[in-house]
């Protein structure tokens, strides 16, 4: 029996194959993992700044927050637009459209395969961080770990759906990645990568909370760092964004496929 076009065998084979595929790019993925050290740069900036007190966290709390932000980013990073745009423009999308499986599942599997490939590199970077900052070492409780994993997975889902929404515009504009760059700026400021959301002025915080961005990094990072956070509200809002974006993606995809001209194929 298939649920949303998937069954256990498809999931197993697709994930296994995509993991094998991503392992072929392990050197590149290691570099990507290294390139995600922005939270550590921000941590060093905040630690050297008098404004650190405004963040409402002590030194260890701030260390843990930015390490958690790094880890959440590692396992929720999405590059759907770039992969999809290339596939749509070169015609590689065509065979996927002619198989009885929604092509988006292939991209989901690619991302999950890539996350699994990142895991050891992220673990090494985390270990190095604790060697440098031994006071920040902590092991989250099982409950917090599971909740953080769930929040990170939901953050990944929101990011994936947001990018899929923009990627679907490839059916019209052919260069949808330019739109993604528009999204990147608000993501950078409002997600919590540069500073915890609590550091922003109240009106920016209020505005941010009406966007999906704080739920992509700040919320899961706080859960992982075991910092005070409204779990129920956080998960409810993450779920609401998924419920809102999913039908939009499917509708836009369906409309876009009607315009697909199978370029280059």
């Amino acid at each position, binding site marked *: 029996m298939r649920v949303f076009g998937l069954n256990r*065998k*498809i999931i*197993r*084979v*697709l994930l296994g*194959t995509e993991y*094998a*595929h991503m392992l*072929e*790019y392990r050197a590149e993925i290691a570099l990507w993992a290294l390139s995600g050290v922005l939270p550590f740069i921000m941590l060093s900036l905040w630690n050297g700044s008098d404004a650190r007190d405004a963040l409402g966290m002590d030194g260890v709390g701030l260390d843990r927050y930015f390490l958690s932000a790094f880890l959440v980013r590692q396992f929720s990073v999405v590059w759907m637009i770039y992969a999809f745009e290339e596939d749509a423009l070169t*015609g*590689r999308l*065509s*065979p*996927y*459209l*002619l*198989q*009885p*499986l929604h092509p988006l599942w292939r991209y989901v599997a690619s991302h999950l395969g890539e996350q699994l490939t990142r895991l050891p590199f992220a673990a090494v970077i985390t270990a190095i961080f604790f060697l440098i900052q031994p006071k920040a070492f902590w092991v989250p409780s099982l409950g917090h770990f599971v909740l953080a994993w769930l929040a990170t997975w939901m953050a990944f889902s929101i990011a994936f759906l947001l990018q899929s929404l923009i990627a679907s515009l490839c059916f019209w504009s052919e260069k949808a990645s330019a739109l993604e760059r528009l999204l990147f700026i608000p993501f950078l400021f409002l997600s919590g990568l540069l500073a915890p959301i609590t550091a922003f002025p109240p009106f920016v915080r209020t505005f941010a909370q009406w966007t999906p961005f704080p739920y992509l990094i700040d919320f899961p990072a706080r859960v992982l760092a075991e910092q005070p956070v409204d779990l129920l509200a956080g998960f409810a809002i993450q779920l609401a964004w998924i419920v809102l974006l999913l039908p939009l993606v499917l509708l836009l995809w369906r409309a876009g496929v*009607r*315009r*697909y*001209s*199978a370029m*280059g*194929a």
Partner: protein
Amino acid sequence: MAPQRSLHPQVAHGSVVIEVEGLSKIYRVADKQPGLSGTLKHFMRRRHRDVHAVSDISFSIVPGEMVGFLGANGAGKTTTLKMLCGLIHPSAGQVVVAGHQPQKRHPDFLRRITLVMGQKQQLLWDLPPMDSLRVNAAVYGISDRDAKRRISELSDLLELGEELTRPVRKLSLGQRMKAELLAALLHQPDVLFLDEPTLGLDVNAQARVRQFLADYNQRTGATMLLTSHYMADITALCPRVLLIHQGHLFHDGPLDRLASRLAPERHVRLELDAPVGAEAFAGLGRLDSCCDCEVNLRVQPDELTAVVAQLLERFEVRDLEVNDPPIDQLIGDLFRQGKV
């Protein structure tokens, strides 16, 4: 020119696997003049024009038929194939393939068709073909046992062995094409759309792919619609051809009828014992060339017997050949001269 319809008797009985009626596809494309002024004008006021890639074509194909789809680059062959397999939506007209409207891409429809594109690949580039085959087997709901059996059968037919466990990027073009065919046929489709399946292959590899397609058709009774720039593919595989030019269907019927339609004259080549002047052939068809002892004439089919008899009577003939002109040359001439 109106398309020449040649409906198979089964069409009348409703056992048609592909039915196309008034199919058209119009692309709207940006129209930009070259140079800076063209760029500025295009930026300020974007202009578009409609390109009629396919215009009002109709044909039917019965189960098990192998039909060749001929046409120059940009004639509309690939666009038609894309519409038949559901990749792109028609601008007008009706298409029914295997009882389905292709553009709806119903899973039952997708399980019954396949599209092989010679210049594109579905295999994962950095992994061995076997990994892509396992994914395809899972996606099409093929059991492990059946998948193993089918892979074994198809790889025997395609003469593939250890290539299936070597990364795709390490395979030769011919090996890759055969692996692509295996991946495309693993789910045993009833209808095959083949777009230049032998493109870029050497002569031996082309012959092997052709033989495989013929065997596959014999074994499974699958229907095939094949485009190719290699006339040998068409003559070897397809008793029936569709000729499309500038989006219009020019011919639908047997290949030899296309040849007689394109070139109603027969070619007569004479080798004489001694040279004869060109004027000696007046009234004996159209003289193509007369050089030393070799003479080439074109003769109308209904005059052929009489002309040959006269040639044998008047001249000392060492050798005489009567041929149809090669079909690829005829079609090439046709497109070059824009006679369609």
